[in-house]
């Protein structure tokens, strides 16, 4: 019933807005630092489909991963033990709009800090030193990106990522096959369509942890630092997150989390992934 009343109300509002829409003005952005401090609740946008960072556990219905644990510990660091954490599932498409319209307070979702994104959101200091790396079968002769720089080598990558351009740069003689998502690229690796798959090390580590017989090799040959994002102008909130992040790094909690999620992944340099 509550929903029903809300919907009818919204419906009538929507009809009016549809025609007056263009002339509406934006509501003033609230101060998120103040709001979250009062309610002792931080709403984080996280991924639900990326292994090791944020992945829905089908059994429990909870989202689990490094990003999720970071969100929880950061919130406790900022507002004390009884502070509440709300997790909202986001996708590449929804995370920035949700941040802009204040449905979520901050995003921690395997998001690379880029100059373009800096124009529209505020980024924290890097919290994960992602970088492009290689995934190969365990018996492969490929040990690093230079081994791929031969005629006849085929590298599998995902369309529209920086990975494609980077392979052309670091191994100009190799051919790159582009796929639409990580699943397809990995399926191609399994069926022998290429010698290696290349993208961010964290994502490759997630695939390796789930598929015995494959490992991450060669370390990172590019830097793709992940950052926490808040809406442009929420500098007070950003400062608070940065400070909490410093404290986590100082008291060893951060290292523990890195070890917990990345320590046992074969061929993955967990120490190198930590940002200090």
């Amino acid at each position, binding site marked *: 019933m509550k929903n029903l009343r809300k919907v009818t109300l919204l419906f009538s509002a929507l009809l009016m807005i*549809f025609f007056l829409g263009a002339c509406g003005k934006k509501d003033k952005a609230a101060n998120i630092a103040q709001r979250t401090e009062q309610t002792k609740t931080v709403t984080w946008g996280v991924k639900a489909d990326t292994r090791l960072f944020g992945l829905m556990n089908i059994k429990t219905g909870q989202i689990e991963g490094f990003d999720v644990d970071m969100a929880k510990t950061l919130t406790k660091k900022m507002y004390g033990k009884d502070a509440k954490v709300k997790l909202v599932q986001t996708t590449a498409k929804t995370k920035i709009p949700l941040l802009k319209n204040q449905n979520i307070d901050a995003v921690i979702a395997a998001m690379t800090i880029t100059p373009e994104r800096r124009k529209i959101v505020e980024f924290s200091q890097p919290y994960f030193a992602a970088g492009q790396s290689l995934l190969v079968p365990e018996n492969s002769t490929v040990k690093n990106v230079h081994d791929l720089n031969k005629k006849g080598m085929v590298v599998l990558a995902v369309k529209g990522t920086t990975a494609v351009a980077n392979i052309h740069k670091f191994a100009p003689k190799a051919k790159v096959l582009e796929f639409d998502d990580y699943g397809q690229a990995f399926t191609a690796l399994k069926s022998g369509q290429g010698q290696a798959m290349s993208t961010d090390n964290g994502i490759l580590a997630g695939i390796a942890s789930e598929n015995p017989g494959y490992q991450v090799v060669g370390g990172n040959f590019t830097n793709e630092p992940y950052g926490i994002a808040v809406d442009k102008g929420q500098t007070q909130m950003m400062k608070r997150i940065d400070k909490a992040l410093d404290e986590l790094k100082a008291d060893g909690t951060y290292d523990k989390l890195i070890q917990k999620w990345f320590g046992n992944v074969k061929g993955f340099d967990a120490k190198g992934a930590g940002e200090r």
Partner: protein
Amino acid sequence: MSTFEQAYSWINLRFLLEGLWVTLEVSVISIVLSFIIGLVLGVIRYVKIKYLSAAVGFLIDIIRNLPLLLIIFFTYFGLPELGLRMTPMLAAVTALVVFESAMLAEIVRSGIQAVPVGQMEGARSSGLTYVQAMWHIIMPQALQKMIPPLVSQFISLVKDTSLATIIVLPELLYHAQIIYSQNTTYMVPMYLMIAVMYFVVCYCLSLVARRLEKRYG
């Protein structure tokens, strides 16, 4: 075959059923609300109240001729710009109700129009008021004629809930995507299973429609 067995583990199936439940929930709420609103709008459009009917008609024509996906985007990503924030659930229901009411209003209007004019005249001359005639004589007949297009519109609505996966509504398609993001080999079994689930729901609806048609048609 073992991939299929693993993919259809009870835990995964339960997760899919949770998604199906959200799909059904959103569908039922949207069907009920849009049917009521569509009925009212359709009648307003039919009876020709000065200005009001024309305005309603124009609005219906606009909404009917836009893609539902655009209305969903507008509701979820656009309205917050005006300070109207909502959950994916509320946004999905709102967008579906707006779009489907307009579609249903058109069905209602043509249903009423299909009732011969003589019926109204006859009812009025035997002493009924306009409203009484509308309610007791015209509408029951019009509703009979409307059953097939109404139900196929309801079926469309159930299928259209899948579009809300883009605003992260935890419905059937989204839950399937979450499952195969855990293990990409589940992709084929998952699409197969949700296709079956949607099919069963929609096909049952169309069987109900056929039943109703036989009984009242």
